[in-house]
């Protein structure tokens, strides 16, 4: 049971996070090998745009926009936020000095960690709900009884609610720090 838990839930989480770190190191090394570190300086822009684009899911979930299927948008939210974070991480590897930028990067990493946690909490909740549904069907429960019992199980989704209570403030911190960093760059950088 413990091995299954490790394989199904802990390992994919760790792998997604480790892949982010390793790919960032690899890209950074490649930029150095080919002496094109200047590219890293500009990777922050597509990275930020990807992260911003991933928020379409958040808007859809809150019904602020009405296009796209939430399940599909969620997948894109996860992918774009992960890839955008990768680009921002490579970009951050080029700049080592300003504290504000570093705080924004750390906030982003915490946000990515929180996002990955949410992803696996959601997968787990779905799996458990489906297992409970099948178990009850095998017991020959009527549709009414099934609904009543599943209501209790659906409370597992409460853990998602609690997770959201953490994920949103973390995202807020990241957004404010990243915005402050971007404003500072626009204010002082010479775009030539």
């Amino acid at each position, binding site marked *: 049971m413990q091995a299954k838990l490790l394989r199904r839930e802990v390992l994919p989480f760790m792998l997604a996070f480790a892949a982010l770190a390793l790919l960032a190191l690899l890209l950074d090394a490649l930029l150095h090998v080919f002496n094109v570190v200047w590219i890293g300086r500009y990777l922050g822009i597509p990275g930020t745009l990807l992260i911003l684009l991933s928020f379409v899911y958040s808007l859809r979930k809150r019904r602020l926009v009405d296009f796209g299927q939430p399940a599909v948008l969620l997948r894109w939210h996860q992918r774009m936020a992960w890839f955008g974070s990768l680009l921002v991480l490579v970009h951050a590897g080029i700049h080592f000095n300003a504290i504000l930028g570093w705080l924004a990067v750390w906030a982003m990493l915490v946000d990515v960690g929180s996002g990955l946690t949410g992803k696996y909490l959601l997968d787990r909740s779905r799996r458990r709900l489906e297992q409970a549904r099948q178990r009850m069907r095998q017991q020959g429960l009527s549709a009414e009884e099934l609904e009543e019992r599943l209501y209790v199980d659906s409370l597992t989704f409460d853990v998602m609610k609690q997770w959201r209570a953490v994920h949103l403030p973390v995202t807020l*911190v990241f957004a404010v720090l990243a915005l402050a960093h971007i404003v500072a760059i626009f*204010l002082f950088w010479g775009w030539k």
Partner: protein
Amino acid sequence: MKRGWLLALICANLAALLALVFIYPHLMVSPGAVVSGHAEIATDCFACHAPLRGASAQRCVNCHVVADIGLRTTKGAPLAQRKLKTSFHQELIERDCMACHSDHEGPKLTQRSRKPFSHGLLRPAVQDRCDSCHVKPADKLHQNLAAGCAQCHKTQAWKPATFEHEKHFVLDRDHNVKCVTCHVNEDYRRYTCYGCHEHTLQNVRAEHEKEGIANYDNCVECHRSADEEPGKRGGREGGESKSRERKKKH
């Protein structure tokens, strides 16, 4: 309720962080420490940066008057010794300080803080006068040379020198020797081919007299490489080379 407090706490922390950006911009925003001469203005970003336009050359010359660079301090006091390499600023074709200067120390692992100087920024007339900024090296090689620096060196870097010995004589496998073997006492105005045991005055004389050649003092006039028939370029076209003939005899 609890959640409201948490959010308020986070917002208060963020506000404090943003306040720190304004109080300590040299730590929070600056990409690196400024040079020691600018320590006094380290917290005044707009002393050098124009809002939304980056570092401005105009703000540099507000303090560093171009006519005084290398000659006087920013306060107008004459420099004790005229700095040869900095007084060229008066000869620049355009005012683009950032083309060479980066005031912030760059990230240590990735870039140099000072960018390499580009000779292309100098007026063309000054570009040809290397000695207006550079002192001729004191070694024998350079002291004996009258030709311009550009014959061997490029403006991108002093080393490697780009002198093409092949134009005068090809240094092939048989002539891969120290410079002094041919240029005795490092005198590069002269050379001798008698510096190695292969060529002696006696055998060179005998061989040339056999061919009816009386003037054989300046070897490279006819022999531009050991693999070349005298008087012809690309010696292989002219049949067997002398060195090959020699090898065959052995």
